[in-house]
């Protein structure tokens, strides 16, 4: 396979969630190489890691995000695609660390204090990572102090907050207030089923998006 064919194959594996050769999913790709093997192969053949990121992973996750927004696929297909993306990403990590491949910036994300819902937050994290950002996922039930500590390590990071309960929207409001009091210039984007743009304005966050695609659009706007 030449490098273009390899990139195309990796893209396909990520889009349809083919993690590696051993997994039976998706049924029509059973027994074939997955994102794991193909990425290794591509690197061995000298395909630039940045091409793998930009031409295969980012393109695949763009399509996955769009299909999810259009309700053509659902949570399981998203999660399995992200798993395939991670299988490829593992091989690219050394090149991120050495600085040979540049990412667009750092995105810190967490579900706010009192809230344990993480499916939506995880999807946003995956799609943003797939869009070429370094993602720091703080998990669920994250308080202001934890967000602030993490921002201290990279003050240019963009911060995403997720809330799924109307009761924890209050907690989102106070966390946004606390972060802004300490770091007025840090950009905060919020989301979650009950969140609206009106609520964003009310609490003084910078961005709101209804889905991962919207989050990527917001971030890419910052990066340029």
């Amino acid at each position, binding site marked *: 396979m030449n490098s273009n064919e390899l990139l195309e194959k990796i893209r396909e594996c990520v889009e349809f969630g083919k993690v590696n050769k051993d997994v039976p999913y998706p049924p029509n790709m059973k027994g074939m190489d997955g994102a794991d093997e193909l990425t290794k192969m591509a690197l061995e053949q000298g395909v630039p890691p940045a091409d793998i990121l930009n031409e295969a992973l980012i393109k695949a996750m763009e399509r996955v995000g769009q299909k999810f927004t259009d*309700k053509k*696929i659902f949570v399981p297909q998203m*999660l399995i695609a992200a798993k395939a993306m991670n299988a490829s990403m593992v091989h690219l990590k050394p090149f991120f660390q050495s600085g040979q491949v540049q990412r667009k910036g750092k995105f810190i994300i967490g579900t706010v204090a009192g809230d344990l819902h993480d499916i939506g937050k995880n999807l946003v994290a995956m799609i943003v990572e797939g869009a070429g950002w370094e993602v720091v996922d703080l998990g669920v039930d994250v308080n202001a102090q934890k967000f602030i500590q993490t921002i201290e390590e990279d003050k240019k990071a963009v911060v995403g907050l997720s809330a799924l309960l109307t009761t924890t929207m209050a907690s989102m409001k106070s966390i946004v207030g606390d972060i802004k009091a300490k770091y007025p210039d840090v950009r905060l984007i919020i989301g979650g089923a009950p969140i609206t743009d009106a609520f964003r304005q009310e609490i003084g966050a910078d961005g709101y998006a209804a889905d991962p695609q919207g989050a990527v659009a917001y971030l890419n706007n910052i990066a340029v």
Partner: protein
Amino acid sequence: MTAIAAKIQSGKILISDGAWGTFLQQKGLAPGECPELWNITHPNDVFDIAKSYIDAGSDMIETNSFGGSSFKLTAYGLSDKVYEINKAAAEISRKAAGTNRHVLGSIGPSGKMIMMGDITYDDFYEAFKHQAIALADGGADAMVVETMSDLDEAKAAVHACLDNTNCEVICTMTFEKSGDSGFHTMMGVTPAQMTEELVALGTHIIGANCGNGIQNMIGIVQEIRKVNKTIPILIHANAGAPVYKDGQTIFPETPEQMAEFVKILIDSGANIIGGCCGTTPNHIRKIAQLVRQ
């Protein structure tokens, strides 16, 4: 007592209960507190809720055990109290229901997913088995596996109830409207898929709960009836989708607004009507009046 499914087969429309979670919050359950622990610490408040639905005309009431599986109780450090908490939940509801109304042991989702390798089918089965046995020991005569979005998890729970108790088993999933392509759970399950798989398993009653209000439920019932004409259908609709206003959560639909859709819901094929989040004894009273007149 005649089984619920048998009553439906004889042509009856039955009334279920309304919300528990939002009701507990009104009674002072704080965010971050374990709602099911109230069965031990605030049994009188829990009893009040159960009793208020019986007084409103419910033929069946649930138990305060939605998050009573070991998955959820572990998060509160209560993993050793699964039996005690669930048994107490059923005892409280049974006390309010007396001997001629039904008690449905509520079993909610775990929050974990098989496909992500978080958990196996057997783990699900074991945990739901323990919960179901405790609910049956406390006096539940039916189980309601509810708010499910993943079929594997729903099936494990239904199986655990069927195998380990003598209770009737109800299973409802939560659907959203997905554009023009009908309804799906967030995991992509359609009402038709749910129907085919759960009926094949021997589930006695199926249906839908929660979601974005009663109007959507009409389309969901129609989709179920397209593939199965006879399986009894239970519908627990929210009082609309929650809105956040001035620091408060509001479920916008009034009893009158919900009642408007009850007749068409029944005409579409629903057999048991009750409410989910945001519905109150007043909603149930209104629905019961309408159905029984």
